[in-house]
């Protein structure tokens, strides 16, 4: 088991190195080069040359790359062009909001998705199954940002059930400990703040959860159907096990293996979807940071957020692989 973990960890290294080369090349291929991007409208040839010397951009490319790598490893991705703050500081401030939103959405998708997929498979071909399958297909076809606006318009503006935007009402005096609004309220025993944050979380989380939910339902359904047709289930049934035992101990357990992989893959989608959802609900997390970076062409910030997204994606999928090995001993051998 330990050897498997070590091997998988070593495999991640070349991926990350290549990713750094790619990001470096990306920065170099900015229109007019990074100096022109930094200066924006104020760019003159003299100023660009001057800044190139300051930034070390007149050095040979390999030298530049290793400098970039050295800074990146120590967590230095430069300063935001808009605020002048270190990008990492900005990200650290915005991260809890996005994590809170993503976890809420993922929980929603998993808690609803697995039972729905399972029930659909059990009643295969019946109206319940057909409706579920159609709903998942439509769910994937709806643009996330449009769904966000629909939810906001209907449940927040028209019905007034939920707040239309933000993470917490302005008039609530909340103490911030961790940056996770719901958790902070619990820690400081300000339960009204927790509740308020939770209410704010509902609409964005639902909007963000739709696509992962649809995918999880479909994978669970397909996987359960696959397992139900397998020999060991027939054996379990024919040796007289209670149908319930077969369903819970044999079918569901084995069917959940592919589902866990899918959940890992969905984290990437969540990060991307968060960019759109956060813009709709003015959430103030990484997505908002990224949307602003796009509008102002704030390249250092953009680069750092994309790198972080890739990093999280790689790590989560590594964890999924490892959990797979724990659940299914056969994986370790290969």
């Amino acid at each position, binding site marked *: 088991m330990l050897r498997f973990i070590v091997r998988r960890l070593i495999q991640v290294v070349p*991926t990350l190195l*290549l990713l750094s080369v790619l990001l470096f090349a990306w920065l170099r291929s900015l229109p007019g080069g990074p100096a022109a991007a930094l200066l924006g409208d104020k760019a003159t040839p003299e100023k660009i040359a001057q800044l190139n010397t300051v930034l070390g951009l007149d050095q040979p490319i390999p030298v530049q790359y290793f400098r970039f790598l050295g800074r990146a490893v120590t967590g230095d991705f430069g300063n935001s062009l808009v605020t002048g703050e270190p990008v990492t500081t900005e990200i650290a401030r915005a991260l809890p909001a996005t994590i809170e939103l993503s976890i809420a959405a993922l929980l929603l998708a998993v808690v609803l998705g697995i039972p729905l997929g399972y029930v659909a498979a059990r009643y295969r071909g019946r109206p319940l199954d057909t409706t579920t399958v159609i709903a998942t297909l439509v769910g994937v076809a709806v643009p996330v*940002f449009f769904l966000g606006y629909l939810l906001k318009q209907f449940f927040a503006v028209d019905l007034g059930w939920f707040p239309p935007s933000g993470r917490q009402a302005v008039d609530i005096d909340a103490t911030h400990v961790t940056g996770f609004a719901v958790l902070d309220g619990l820690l400081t025993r300000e339960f009204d703040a927790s509740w308020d944050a939770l209410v704010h979380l509902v609409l964005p989380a639902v909007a963000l959860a739709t696509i992962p939910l649809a995918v999880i339902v479909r994978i669970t359904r397909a996987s359960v159907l696959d397992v139900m047709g397998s020999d060991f289930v027939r054996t379990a049934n024919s040796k007289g096990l209670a149908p319930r035992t077969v369903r819970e101990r044999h079918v569901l357990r084995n069917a959940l293996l592919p589902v866990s992989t899918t959940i890992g893959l969905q984290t990437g989608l969540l990060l991307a979807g968060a960019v759109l959802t956060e813009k709709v609900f003015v959430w103030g997390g990484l997505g908002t940071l990224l949307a602003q970076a*796009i509008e102002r062409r704030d390249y250092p910030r953009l680069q750092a957020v994309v790198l972080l997204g890739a990093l999280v994606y790689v790590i989560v999928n590594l964890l999924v692989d490892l959990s797979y090995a724990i659940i299914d001993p056969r994986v370790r051998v290969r």
Partner: protein
Amino acid sequence: MTSLLERRRRRVDELAEASGRSLTADAFLRLRRNPVAIVGAVIVALFVLVSILAPWIAPHDAATAFPELQRTLRPDSIPGAQPGFPLGSDQNGRDFFSRMILASRQTLLVGVLATLIGLVFGVLIGALAGAFGGWVDTVLMRVTDVLLSIPSLLLAISIAALAARPSQTTVIIAVALVSVPIFARLLRGSMLAQRESDHVLAATSLGVPRRAIVLRHMLPNAMGPVIVQATLTLATSILDAAALSFLGLGDGDPARAEWGLMLANAQAYLDVRPALAFWPAIAIILVALGFTLLGEALREALDPKGRR
């Protein structure tokens, strides 16, 4: 009452009949029997038809603003349907109906071009990796793995943001590049499976040149999953392009009529006139659904496990 013998004979006949057809013909036959495929195909056919006939269906130009519409245009009210303008005005006093119809062309263009570019490059990389194996395979797949490790929309955003001035071309390129690693990985996988197969071994031992084996024996047989993926990519490309427009990375030209762009630009007028967002949204959802249904049905039809 049918005897056991008769039933068995019929079963054998069915098998013989099935194996007499080529995989493609067989898949097509099953596709025609599948209601999901029919619905998908009808939606896609309508979409293509409208976009081909768009200039003849649309009563007006997409870029012209009409004084009779602009006269009643206020920041808090956008005129609705009136004679000659079935869906009323858009936010700039142009005929919304004509723009909806003409936009089908641009949306189809974005979807098809993005998918095609992704397909060509992906197939090229995948075929090279799958045909040669060894270090070529290792290098190419490492690079595609890295691209796959960036969440796709984030990758599209970074590519689109590189353009000094966003345009439809940059949107297409950004959306296309995201699908390259997917196509490459997919084709490489099925090419590798072909390499190990008996008919390739047979061709090799007959002395068929390697180039002919790759091009005539391996590639055509490995294309099935790629074609399925391409159909699904048509849907995601259109959705991704809409998302890029929403983030301000779409075409800056206000005259351009494209559903994703129209939907993104209509968000600011959602309180004033929600129809400006609803129509493009419904169009996008329908088209994405059409391609997805077709792709899923195609996947099922091409799956040899379903062949009986």
